[in-house]
Each structure stands twice: as C-alpha cells, then as structure tokens.
C-alpha cells in the first residue's frame, strides 16, 4: 500500500520494526516482555539499545533475529516482513541477520573444533563448493577478525574469552549478513579486551557496511560506539534519538535516572 511511498519519503531503512509485542506464556502467568516497540536501523548504522536487566532488550534482540517469535507487530527487513517467516524463507533470512551472544564461553560447542563449526554453517547454507573451499573461507574469516587462521582447528577450551568472542564474530560473518544483533557482546570480557572487540566491530562496520543492533547496559560503551540509541524501560522504548542528544540531553525521567546511576556522567 502506501508503505512503499513512505519508505521513499524518508531515508533508506535496513530494518524497520513496528508495534512489536513479545509475550511469553499464556493467561495469568504471561509476561509482556516487549510492548509496542517501533524503531528502525539504517544500513551501516550502529544502533544502541540500553536499559536495565529484565527491561526486555534481549527479548527484542531475539525477536529481531527470530529466536523468539513475536506475538504481534511487523519486522520489515529490506522490504520483507520477517515477523512470521517459516522454513526455507526463515533460513534465507538467517543469511541477512546474525547474532553475537553475551557469553563467549557458552556460545561455542565444546565438542567441536571452532573451524568445523563454521564449515558446518557454510555447508548448511550451501556456500562454497567443497570442504577445501569452505576451509579456505574459514581461514579468511579468521584473518578478518584478527585471529591466526591455523587456530581454526582447535577446540573452544583452548581460547581466551576475547579470542572466543572473535570466533563467534567470525562465525556470524560466515553468512555475510547485513545486520548483526550483538547482545551484550563485551560485558563478559575484561575492559582491555572490551576495547579491542569494540574496535573490531567498528572496523567491520567500515569495511563491510555492516549494521548493528547493539544491546547493552553499559552507557559508556554505547556512547562510544553507537550512532543512535533507544532507551528501554519495562518493555517499552521511552526515548530514542542520536546518541549525543539522548545521553547529553535526556528528555525522559527514566533516562535521567539511568544516567545518574553511572558515576562518569
């Protein structure tokens, strides 16, 4: 209908989420984790999502990547509503949007060589002709995230937290996505390692025009890496805008409280 017209009217949007609701469970015990949330992400943009634990920011991230099924609302990705995709179409969507998780220790299969896990992903999506070619791709991905390609044939327990997170990023990049959902990607890491990973994310954005949905509770990190930011409270977005505006001139009561809770602001 008129959505085409409106999209042409404003800037190009990579991801456009409208009136998204996520409700877990049914009846009395149900939890309304995400309430009528709307936002958009432009290509190559780092979009921050901040809020306290349990505010629904992770649920929103999981809904965007479709690990959680949204209860209602639309998730428009490059003109296609992905909120109710299933089967083959959902698998295709997986190539466009990928995720990096908070816990670098739990997100790699302990019984699988890290490179084999990536080869497995390439195999499922029929990328590369044979195993040799897929192994070459793995080596290239390892280089892209700043790891020695020879390390690809080791088990996860031989790597440090920061190295593991790099491997997770390499795995997410294997499908060459346009959007990366990063759910607290650095909060489990040491501060010095955090900076390195954030640098890597910036570099990937610059090289691949990769957009990020950057979920975090750390305002300092968000301030440093994000272009725009949304503040979530109790399942709703209470404030949204350029990162400098939101953090330096907070409009909403909750944002002010959140900022006041951080010593450096």
């Amino acid at each position: 209908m008129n959505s085409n017209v409106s999209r042409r009217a404003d800037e190009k949007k990579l991801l456009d989420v409208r009136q998204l609701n996520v409700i877990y469970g049914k009846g009395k015990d149900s939890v309304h984790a995400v309430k009528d949330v709307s936002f958009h992400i432009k290509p190559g943009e780092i979009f921050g999502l901040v809020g306290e634990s349990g505010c629904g920011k992770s649920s929103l991230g999981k809904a965007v990547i479709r690990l959680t099924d949204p209860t209602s609302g639309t998730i428009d990705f490059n003109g296609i509503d992905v909120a109710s995709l299933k089967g083959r179409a959902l698998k295709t969507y997986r190539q466009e949007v990928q995720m990096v998780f908070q816990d670098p220790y739990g997100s790699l299969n302990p019984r699988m060589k890290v490179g084999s896990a990536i080869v497995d992903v390439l195999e499922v999506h029929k990328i590369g002709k044979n195993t040799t070619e897929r192994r070459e791709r793995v080596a290239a991905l390892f280089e892209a995230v700043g790891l020695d390609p020879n390390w690809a044939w080791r088990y996860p327990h031989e790597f440090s937290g920061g190295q593991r997170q790099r491997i997770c990023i390499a795995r997410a990049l294997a499908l060459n996505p346009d959007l990366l959902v990063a759910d607290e990607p650095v909060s489990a890491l040491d501060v010095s390692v955090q900076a390195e990973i954030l640098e890597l994310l910036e570099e990937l954005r610059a090289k691949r025009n990769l957009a990020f949905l950057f979920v975090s509770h750390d305002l300092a990190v968000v301030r440093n890496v994000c272009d725009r930011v949304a503040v979530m409270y109790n399942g709703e977005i209470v404030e949204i805008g350029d990162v400098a505006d939101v953090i330096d001139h907070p409009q909403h009561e909750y944002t002010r409280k959140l900022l006041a809770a951080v010593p450096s602001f």
Partner: protein
Amino acid sequence: MKSKSQSLWGDAWRRLKKNRLAMFCLGLVIFFTLLAVYGEIIYRYHEIRDITPSYQLTNLDAAYEAPSSSHWMGTDGLGRDVMARLVQGVRIAYKVGIITSMIAIPIGVILGCLAGFFGGKVDDFIVWLYSTFASMPGLLFILAIAMVVPDRGLLGVYLGIGLTTWVGLCRLVRGEVMKHKEQTYVQAAKALGLGSGRIMFKHILPNISHVIIVTFSLRFPAAVGTEVIMSFLGIGVQGEPSWGLMIDSARMRLWQGMWWEMTFVTIALFLLVLAFNLLGDALRDALDPRLND
C-alpha cells in the same frame, strides 16, 4: 595457548589412566572380550566343520569330577569340562550384552533427543510411552516378549531385554538435551539456520555422549545378568553353554558337595559385572565435560 591441540577424548583418557582401579577393570573387560572372541572363533570353527565341539561332548564316565590338572574347574553332570563351557558362556553373555544394547540404546537416544529437543506434545507422548514401559514389572515383561517370539532361544532374549531397558537412558538423554537446548551454542546454531536434526545429532549428541557410554557400561552387565536369569528359568538360551544354564544345572547337585561349577560360574559373572560397573563409574568421572577446566 597450548602448543598442540588436545581433543577432549584425549583429556578423558589421561584422567582415566590415573585411576588404577579403572585400569585394572579395563584390563579385565579386555580379557573377557578376548575370551568372547575366542569363544566365537571356536564356535564358528566347529559349525563350519560340522563337528560337535569338545565342550558339548558328554562323557558320563567323567561326570562330576572335582577340579584337577586335566579339568581345572572340574566337570559337570554330563562329564563336560566346566572351564571350556565357562569360556563359551562368555560368548553368549557378550552377544546378549551387545545386541540388546544395539536395540535399547538407539531407541533410548532417539526418543530422548526428540522429547528433550521438541518438548510439548512430542515430549508428552514419549514421557507417557516410557512411563508405561517403566510401570510394568521388568522381568515379567521380558518373559512375556520372550514367550511371544515364535523361535524361542536367543532372539527372545535379545528382544525381551532390548525392548524393555531403553527407559532409563531415554529419561537421562531427555534431561541432558533439555539442559543443552537452553545453552547459547544451541541458540547460536538455531540463529545460524541449522536444522533441528543437525542440531540434535551433530551438535548436542556429542556433548552427551558420555551419558551413553556410561549407560552402556552399566547396562551391559545388567543384560548379562538378565540372560542368566532367563536361561535359568528355561526360556533363554538352548543348546549352547550359557552361564544361566550352567548355574541351573549346578544347583541340583550343590548340596551333594559338587561346588565347582556353581562357584566358578558365579565368580566369572561377579567379575564381569564388577569390572563393567567400576569402569562405568570411572568413565563417568573421566568423561564429564564439567571437569575440564
């Protein structure tokens, strides 16, 4: 960063090697395995040549001879050498242990994986199924299956034991899969577009393989024991020397002082069960991935 990559199996083996009792049991298990292979070769040899093996030849003049240098473990009521029959008995015991495992373990693993991974109605159905199986008295159920199988003998034993002993493993696998399903690496696999079958069997299954190995080492002697009971009751092995038959025939004359057949068979059974159980216990410790760090 270590210079050389170490597999988790290598780690487990290193830990197992430190446990002396486990290594002794492993030696015992290997010894029994070799006996079983030897028994199978002897059996095949006589079958191809179509001659009666010496352990089946009756010699009533030599009945109930006490252990001596010519018969180390004495002879039975038909004058057959107890040691030769004991060794052939290992063959039957292994056949029962391995074949029933090949029936029970796939059923338990596949149903457990499906129930744990999919949850919901699939889970309800499988839980109902195994609860039904578990609520029936085991031996009676085994006897019923063995009676129904037209060709009595070992097939009845295999099916009887195989079809009734998957419940414990199924329950264990279901629980483990439920636990792993929530872990981030499975979430990541889903997000990467991997199919359910691949996630279940290629990603989760290797992580719970220790459960399967331990279960095998514990259910193997249990199956051997059940075969002995069935043969003892007369619905198991027929014609071949099995430990159950030997115990059954030995009990008649035990009170007359013919102790050797009963004693040696019981010791062999005891050692086999003990070795497998202790090894299973040690394997459980060695293979547990939580101990890795």
